């Protein structure tokens, strides 16, 4: 069972090369722009490298600046990850029918449950973990580049950068965010899998239409906004960020860094994992995802392909 699942997950990576390619492209773009100084120098100015060698910022402020830089770098990856997840899930059960290879896949001793599960696991865990690796690599590359930049000005990269970055805190927070975001958005993932399993054409359109139209219909008929809350507000109001005030503090430019630094907050500390896990909306979402996934399995199993 586990060996089969691993083989199926590997199969997903062979078929959907974008799972690697997309984060790699984002990483290369960021690395290249960091080489030209677009990324690093802008941030390093806060540390006022102008007074080379003499750090005019307290250690905790420097650490805050570097953390902000790292979060900023993770942003495009998380955005790309979600786009990738949408397209992956929509394609995952559609492609095998389009290229007619489904009969081959079904001629192998693997159940429909196992197959659909592998697609769900890819969306929930494999894509985030690969994105995570790409983020770490990018962070290291950009910091390395910054180190060269600092070193050329006669300052100590070790002192200014490497010893100041709270790597463990930063990366744990990133990993938590990468793994919780798909869970929070899992009802959409389930819906996309289901659409991918049943639609005869244009899965993107078929998946998007109800998400756009249903809230509109609800608004017109009942004047309420339950669906639009469920569909749109949900995606931005993840209960992981109840410490959002602190986050704002962190995100503000310039002098506020010192406020954040004074607060001595860790990124991980900003994420309220307990509140997230105890949030009923999370679990409702997971149940919805489960229902759609079972529906996708059912469609794959019972539909006659001839």
């Amino acid at each position, binding site marked *: 069972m586990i*060996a*089969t699942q*691993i*083989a*199926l997950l*590997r*199969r997903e990576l*062979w*078929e959907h090369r974008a799972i690697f390619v997309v984060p790699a492209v984002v990483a290369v773009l960021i690395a290249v722009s960091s080489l030209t100084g677009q990324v690093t120098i802008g941030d390093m100015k806060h540390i006022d490298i102008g007074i080379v060698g003499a750090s005019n910022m307290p250690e905790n402020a420097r650490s805050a600046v570097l953390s902000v830089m790292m979060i900023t770098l993770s942003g495009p990856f998380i955005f790309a990850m979600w786009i990738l997840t949408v397209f992956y899930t929509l394609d995952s059960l559609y492609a*095998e029918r389009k*290229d*007619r*290879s489904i*009969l*081959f*896949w*079904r*001629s*192998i*001793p*693997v*159940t429909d449950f196992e197959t659909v599960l592998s697609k769900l696991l890819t969306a929930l865990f494999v894509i985030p973990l690969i994105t995570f690796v790409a983020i770490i690599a990018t962070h290291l590359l950009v910091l390395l580049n910054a180190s060269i930049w600092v070193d050329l000005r006669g300052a100590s990269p070790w002192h200014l950068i490497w010893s100041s970055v709270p790597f463990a805190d930063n990366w744990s927070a990133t990993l938590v965010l990468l793994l919780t975001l798909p869970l929070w958005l899992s009802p959409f993932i389930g819906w996309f899998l289901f659409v991918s399993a049943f639609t005869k054409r244009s899965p993107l359109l078929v998946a998007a239409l109800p998400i756009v139209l249903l809230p509109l219909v609800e608004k017109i008929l009942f004047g309420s906004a339950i669906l639009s809350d469920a569909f749109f507000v949900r995606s931005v109001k993840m209960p992981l960020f109840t410490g959002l005030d602190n986050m704002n503090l962190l995100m503000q430019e310039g002098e506020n860094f010192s406020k954040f630094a004074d607060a001595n907050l860790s990124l991980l500390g900003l994420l309220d994992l307990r509140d997230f896990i105890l949030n009923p909306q999370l679990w409702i979402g997971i149940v919805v995802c489960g229902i759609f996934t079972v529906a996708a399995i059912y469609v794959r199993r*019972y539909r*006659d*392909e*001839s």
Partner: protein
Amino acid sequence: MTSIVSARNVSKSFGTLRAVDNVSFEIEQGRVMGLIGPNGAGKTTLLKAVLGLTDCEGRLSVLGLDPFRQRRELMQNICFIADVAVLPRWIKVSQLFDFLESVHPNFSRTRAEDLLQLTDIKTKSKVRELSKGMVTQLHLSIIIAINAKLLVLDEPTLGLDIIFRKEFYTNLLNDYFDEKRTIIITTHQVEEIENLLTDVMFIDHGGLVLDSNMDAIAEDYVELLASAENAVKVARFKPFYEKEVFGKKVLTFEGVSREQLAEFGEVRTPNIADLFVAKIKGEAA
């Protein structure tokens, strides 16, 4: 003899259409069964039921399993090709072997690689880079490398040229078939498989028109090539089908001895294709 497939009153409807209508048959181990029928006769639906790809009414048992409900177990001992050349196009040959090795308990990678050595297919190639004939060869090597008890072939050579078709069946017989294995095969090109069948079933409008082994066909059916004048004389033997070829009559009989007919013309065993036409048209008449 062990029964590999056992069907009792199997039916399958799509809306009001009865694609398979109350069909009963047995297929025993070591047989090569040809399932022959016109388009839309219910062949593919019946095969799908056997493969557990579709549910059906009645009692259907394949290798002692309920094919629809125990499909995973079933697939460990069944192989099928439904229209070759539909392997996933993005996959590399080596990846295909890796995958099968990890999910199929009866797949022998060395066997598949040995077979591939005999072809021009490289393990680094992707399926999309292969010609249709090569994909067929690849698919066949996989099938042969899987130690399955039952092989189901649904129009396996559709769209292939004659050379590949012949090669496909030759390899199938030489490398795959032995007395422990059973094959069910459907095709339009009946002539090409006639000499490898041990049994034959005709299906039309969802029902079985004929279920017989090949030896019995030679005993039960006889074709008479006679002049128009003689054709009238044999009417008392009740031919169930009659046609005209080059000014002569060809009549098909069931259960009439050759000796009785020999004096009226040339007597021979009908080939499967002719018998099929005779049966289907004769029934309709």
